[in-house]
């Protein structure tokens, strides 16, 4: 099967990969690029474990072909921390025990990071709505919501939230 060259940036780095048309983006990320932080949960577009940012927006990378990433800017969970410092959302998950087995966590953090970048002070309802495409089978969501609220407070306590909330385009 013919391979195609696909060019995109991922976590700020320009990449050129070879992909079969039918390769799903999540497999390109995990297998070709070795970035295994992005998980495959359901494979059926339901769980959100594979959530990444595509030009800054959270999307399910199991429901896109790698070839569709041509010219795009991607961010995965590996791109959230900068210089070894966790982003506020990651710190929130740590502080508030926002994970148990951790399988859903990368996707949750990608969705939460995108939410806090677009909505200044989301209410609890807005947070729950935003993560409604990310399923967690362990926590019952309570600590995940707390983790996101922690991140929100932390960002507001800091002078330049845009500079702090890294990740994305």
């Amino acid at each position, binding site marked *: *099967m013919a391979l*195609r060259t696909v060019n995109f940036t991922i976590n700020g780095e320009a990449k050129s990969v070879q992909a*079969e*048309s*039918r390769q*799903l983006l999540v497999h390109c990320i995990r297998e070709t690029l070795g970035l295994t932080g992005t998980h495959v949960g359901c*494979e*059926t*577009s*339901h769980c*959100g474990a594979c*959530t990444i940012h*595509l030009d800054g*927006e*959270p*999307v*399910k990378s199991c*429901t*896109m*072909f790698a*070839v*569709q990433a*041509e010219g795009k800017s991607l961010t995965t969970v590996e791109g959230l921390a900068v210089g070894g410092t966790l982003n506020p959302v990651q710190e929130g998950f740590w502080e508030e025990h926002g994970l148990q087995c951790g399988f859903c966590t990368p996707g949750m953090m990608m*969705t939460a990071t995108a939410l806090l970048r677009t909505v200044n002070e989301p209410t609890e309802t807005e947070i729950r*709505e*935003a993560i*409604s*495409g*990310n399923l967690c089978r362990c926590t019952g969501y309570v600590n995940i919501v707390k983790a996101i609220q922690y991140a929100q407070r932390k960002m507001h306590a800091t002078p330049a939230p845009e500079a702090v909330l890294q990740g994305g385009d």
Partner: protein
Amino acid sequence: MIPASFEYVVAHSLDETVGLLAKHGSDAKILSGGMSLIPAMKLRLAQPAFIIDVNGVSGLAYIREEHGELRIGAMTRESALERSSLVKHGYPILFETARVIADPLVRNRATIGGNLAHADPANDHPATMLALGATIVAHGPNGDRLIPIDEFFPSFFASALEPDEILTEIRIPAPGVRNGGAYIKFERKVGDYAIAAVAVNLTLDAHDTCIAARIGLTNVTDVPARATRAEAFLVGRRITDQAIADASRLAAHESDPKSDLRGSAEYKRDLVRVLAGRAIGRAVSRARGGSH
């Protein structure tokens, strides 16, 4: 879950898309949001030999009022409909529809054109567009063709689009005075298709007599369909609680649900009755000028 092999082509214009469709015929599929097509390909329910990615065709994502109509480009994502204040305030029925489709991650990709072209009776836009009396714009080798929504869903999982046509725009008549609409969906959990849902769009005269009504049903008929007897019952009648209850019962009779994992046919039919009552009630209150 690996899709079967296919050839991938990125189209940059409508003419190029139509040319590719004409060349490859029914072997080709347009790829918009991919949120129905890619899951179907993963399950190998769909195995197109050619995929024409139209995400590179510019000028197909817009929401604007023009010539007394709301015009929506086919590539408009659900998330854009949800965020549009024109939609939220001017067409609350459409806002209510976009918001309950799938989940926020899916809505960042899914397009309104794909939702209609897919012609799935479980999808939410068909019922709403039937209620709104929308017109579909299809672009083919001979230019644009207008298709009334009532003719757009001819048979099971089929649309009225020709194999060499692409859906480019949806046109919705701007609401007149004392017009109101509502979409109410009942789902098991976020991201699921409707157990049942009802879309209502109606107009009242100054004395609360209904002068126009259209009712669309989701996931309780083989093809997206209207509850025409319930509509006919409402038109010419003064809106009372009794009239709403009677119309809802007619809508339930017109539905033809199948028993499945979402519930028994009996349960779903009764759900149509309840949801129709609520949707008519909300549409009436909007038509009278209330927001709910």
